[in-house]
């Protein structure tokens, strides 16, 4: 079971002149939580919609366990669309049973699964209420139950954490972890990068419809340029500016953050720091996911600038 993967392979989609996806490629292994991040309009939702067959791709293929995803496979995917929606005038419990049965469950299985998930997500007492009468938080829980009620083999969740209160975020995180541990590949998109960093085994950063960085969180963070934080209280401003292979990232207040080019000598940095006086801290710092994300977004910005003004030169 652990070797099965959901593969998105070279999927492209354009709307007229607008390129929504440009050969989007990544895969998610069974038992793994994959975080899908990118700015608004980068192509996350389009990718998920194509994986679910809600949209047709212009090119490329989505495969599960080596075989192209078909209508039959899709019945075994749990999906939470970005555009949340349930029948407003239908009772929550009936709605979940209905969705479960549309996914092929029998009547008794559907009602058992509805009970199980509404209990797990803390909305069991609400199953007799019309969805429109539920609070927003409870509607979100029912929406998640709708993605889980047919015991899916794959989970695709578009912004599952948006609009959730902290308790619900914890419940949701635990559910995703349990599902992954049970051998389900879980893919979700989010703008809450700390959450993604904490929860995901691997992360993909999308920009302009293509995957620009993809890998384990630790791998991505260490893959960036090496950074060193130096706390030398008596060092004058600009003390590290002249060191070979060193770029000052930030020294506005207190400790100085330096970025080392490959092959730069960190010991030379330490000596330079000691020369200014006492050194209280000298530590390697991995960039956070937020830093990586900003880097990707700012690259995009720079490319635009270059393209428009043709200035080249200094990259931030």
């Amino acid at each position, binding site marked *: 079971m652990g070797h099965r993967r959901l593969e998105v392979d070279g999927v492209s989609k354009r709307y007229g002149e607008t390129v929504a996806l440009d050969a989007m490629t990544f895969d998610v292994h069974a038992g793994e939580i994959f975080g899908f991040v990118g700015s608004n309009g980068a192509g996350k939702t389009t990718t998920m919609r194509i994986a679910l*067959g809600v949209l047709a791709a212009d090119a490329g293929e989505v495969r599960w366990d080596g075989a192209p995803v078909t209508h039959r496979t899709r019945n075994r*995917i749990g999906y939470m*669309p970005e555009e949340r929606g349930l*029948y407003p005038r239908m009772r929550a419990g009936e709605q979940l049973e209905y*969705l479960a049965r549309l996914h092929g469950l029998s009547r008794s299985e559907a009602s058992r699964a509805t009970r199980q998930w509404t209990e797990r997500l803390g909305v069991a007492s609400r199953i007799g209420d019309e969805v429109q009468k539920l609070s927003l938080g409870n509607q979100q829980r029912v929406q998640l139950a709708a993605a889980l009620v047919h015991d899916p083999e794959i989970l695709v969740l578009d912004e599952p954490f948006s609009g959730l209160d902290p308790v619900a975020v914890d419940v949701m995180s635990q559910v995703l972890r349990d599902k992954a541990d049970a051998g389900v590949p879980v893919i979700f998109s989010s703008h809450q990068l700390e959450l993604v960093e904490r929860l995901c085994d691997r992360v993909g950063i999308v920009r302009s419809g293509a995957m620009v960085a993809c890998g384990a969180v630790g791998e991505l963070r260490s893959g960036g340029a090496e950074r060193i934080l130096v706390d030398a209280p008596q060092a004058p401003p600009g003390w590290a500016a002249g060191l070979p292979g060193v770029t000052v990232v930030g020294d506005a207040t207190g400790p100085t953050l330096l970025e080392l080019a490959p092959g730069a000598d960190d010991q030379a940095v330490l000596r330079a720091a000691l020369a200014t006086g006492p050194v209280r801290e000298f530590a390697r710092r991995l960039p956070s996911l937020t830093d990586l994300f900003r880097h990707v977004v700012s690259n995009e910005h720079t490319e635009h600038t270059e393209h428009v003004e043709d200035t080249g030169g200094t990259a931030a």
Partner: protein
Amino acid sequence: MNRTAREAVGLIAQRELTMRLRSRAFRITLVLMVLMVVGMNIALHLAHNSGPSIIRIGLLRQDTALSAPLQAADRNVAAVTVPDLASGQSDVRKGTLAAFVRSGPDGLAVTVAKTLDPTLGGALTTVARERALAAQIIRLGGDPVLVARAAGAATVHVTSLQPPAPARDQQRLIFGIVVRLLLYLTFMICGPLIAQGVVEEKSSRVVELLLATVRPWQLMVGKVLGTGALGLLQIVVVGGAGLISARLARTLTLPLSGSLGTLAWSLAWFLAGFALFSLLFAAAGSLVSRQEDLSGVQFPVLAPIIIAWVLGISTLPGHPDSGLVAALSMVPFFAPVLMPMRIALGTAPVWQAFTALGLTLLLAFLMVRLASRIYRNSVLRSGARVTWREALRAA
């Protein structure tokens, strides 16, 4: 359709039907329609059988002989005996008597509250004349009874040179109109219900969740079938209530086999018309994302139904052989409303009825593809209204 597709369509149709049956609006409409047909039968029953209400008149004891000829002249007249002139007049004043009648020297004297009811006036005039005539016959030595019998035996023989047109009696006409009204209302209720249902899924955005597991055509066909079942249920309940109350009230005395024929044709036309229009309503609904925008897009679908109905109901009772209606009743978009009207009136040849039905079903069949295409292309596009042209063009 494979097994899972059939199951999906069945589940969708079932949900549609149960949710609609549960809605207050539907129940109220159904009750109102049942009350309407039953009420109409009761009204017709009263109008036919009791006719105008009983006219009570007062007679003095010495005038009781007037009672029989008065009733012969107008069977709604009921005579009661009053003790004297004063009480007769006071009963008229109180309104318990419509009139107080006495025989006078030159015929009859009548006391009424304000004016004499013209029917009663006619009956009294007849009786007064008969009495004067009888008195003259007796004076001439004749027998008034013999004279009356001879007068009664005289008849007028009619010879028509052209065969009469087939009888289109009132009952048949009314029955046809009621059945058509029921079907028309069902179209007008169920069509927009389908469109509303589609928009509800779009505006609540549940459609994306549904389309992640069923195909667009399954969703559309399921909704159409569910609402169609609802319409059929409505027809059976309202039609059944109408038929039973008509039998009980004796307003429908046509042979039942004749009514069943009309009903069977009506059912066939309901199904054909529903197949044609329902898919168009679903397609129309998929173009918009808000209920407020619905009336604009569904108007082109409603228009032929309304035009056919207004044309049929205004033309056919007076001119059952209207050439315009006959021609339009062969055109698929108008046929589901007009042809069953002509069938109910007995003016449509069998070949025309079957040809129109065939054409309508053929167009409905072609419409499945067209409507599926429109639906598939627009159901996920939320926001601004999608035009018919865009929906047809987009791949």
